């Protein structure tokens, strides 16, 4: 049984801490009209991508803790943009006070929460005991370690399909069609034409990169920082390209030039 919270045959729900796709909105200012205007402009480039998306508010970039009323205005601005605020990120020290006032939960860093409990147990045991003995005694409940090689996908990824490599790289040896999505916690490699969307480091790994043989992507994201390509830059279109994060900025370069 590898389920996080084992269900009995009669149970009607499964409980698990899982990975869900949330848009992180980090506030730099608390000016609701300005936020609304900027959201509208940025969403216009990829409307379906944001429609009904859950939003996690990140207050950590603000110098002063905002007023509750101001935050309500911002939540409303986000709603008007077609998205739903579902929580406040724990990245800011004031989250614990502000979130309850907004009737929202505090959302903790996903990385720890999404790890299976057995691994946490093992980590704790390993820390508490001298290592050699702990290793020699097999732990029946230990989850297998995440695979180290990437997930290799040899079929074309067609429009409407999504392929996700959890806790590793994704290697696609065929084309990724327009309207298809390839995602990995690690790097994404496409040995074919990339016409759809590619997302690397989807659980926050800022070192993850995207590599593709023929770049025609609709959208590229790394650790949540994304760029939509309404028109393809001429210097990238059709070429082998890699993308990576430099601080907060997404960078692209062509191979072999």
């Amino acid at each position, binding site marked *: 049984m590898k389920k996080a919270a084992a269900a009995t045959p009669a149970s009607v729900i499964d409980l698990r801490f899982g990975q869900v796709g949330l848009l992180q909105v980090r506030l730099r200012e608390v000016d609701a009209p300005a936020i609304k205007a900027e959201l509208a402009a940025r969403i216009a480039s990829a409307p379906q991508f944001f429609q009904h998306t859950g939003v996690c508010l990140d207050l950590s970039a603000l110098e002063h803790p905002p007023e509750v009323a101001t935050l309500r205005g911002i939540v409303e601005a986000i709603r008007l943009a077609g998205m739903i605020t579902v929580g406040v990120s724990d990245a800011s020290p004031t989250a614990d006070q502000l979130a309850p006032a907004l009737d929202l939960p505090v959302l903790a860093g996903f990385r720890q929460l999404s790890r299976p409990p057995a691994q946490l147990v093992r980590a704790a045991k390993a820390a508490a005991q001298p290592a050699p003995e702990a290793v020699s005694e097999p732990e029946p409940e230990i989850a297998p370690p995440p695979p180290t090689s990437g997930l290799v996908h040899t079929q*074309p*990824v*067609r*429009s*409407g*399909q999504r392929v996700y490599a959890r806790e590793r790289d994704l290697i696609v040896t*065929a*084309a990724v069609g327009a*309207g*298809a999505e390839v995602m990995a916690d690690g790097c994404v490699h496409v040995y074919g034409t990339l016409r759809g969307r590619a997302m690397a480091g989807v659980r926050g790994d800022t070192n993850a990169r995207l590599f593709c043989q023929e770049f025609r992507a609709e959208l590229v994201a790394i650790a949540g920082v994304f760029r939509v390509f309404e028109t393809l830059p001429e210097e990238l279109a059709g070429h082998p390209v890699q993308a990576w994060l430099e601080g907060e900025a997404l960078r692209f370069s062509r191979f072999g030039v």
Partner: protein
Amino acid sequence: MTEIIVVTSGKGGVGKTTTSASLACGLARTGKRVAVIDFDIGLRNLDLIMGCERRVVYDFVNVINGDCTLKQALIKDKRIDTLFVLAASQTRDKDALTAEGVRKVLDELIADGFDFILCDSPAGIEKGAHLAMYYADRAVVVVNPEVSSVRDSDRILGLLASKTERAEKGGTKVREHLLLTRYSPTRVAAGEMLSIADVKDILGLDVIGVIPESPQVLSASNAGTPVIMMDESDAAAAYGDAVARLLGDESLPMRFIDEPKKGFFARVFGG
């Protein structure tokens, strides 16, 4: 061995029914026993193109519901005696189809010794289209040389690889073929349409036939004659080639894919 072939596309109006009718005739002309089924419940069309609309008594939904036997509902073609049509219901909606019902009809056709069963899919990716492809051994994906049609075909190819019985049971996958239709070499040359190479490249599949844009398609369907039966039509010859390739002839070169050479007068007077 019966082969079940779905003719599908995602996008509407690209030429699925025209193609189903001509492929069915073309296969049956070689002596194979062929049944062609209209899955477009509520928008019955195939019987018109096949010219048997006035002979429809019972339809596909009637057979599924047990209102009649399969034999009573199969309409024998007047031109080719190994060809049979199973019409769609015009009065029901797509919910009248069920997976078990479709399976039952297919099994009965298989038991009857048909060589080919062609399933003319409705447009879209909803229930009717899903059931038309679900039991297929092969798929002919009909595509027009334009971006939206190619995009929808890519979506359909994804469903063929994941939402069919073969995909779900993990057996050999559905054999996929592309059929490019309404192809106009002049418009391709003018850059108004995608070329064969573009379509092949985007979808990563080989093309089993290229059917030119042809006014005869419309006159044939008005006459209730599948266009493949029209002598001296380019579209008929192109469908004939596609049938041969479907039956395994890989040596045929593609025809009607180059811009027609203009004659002297056309060149002088701008034709």
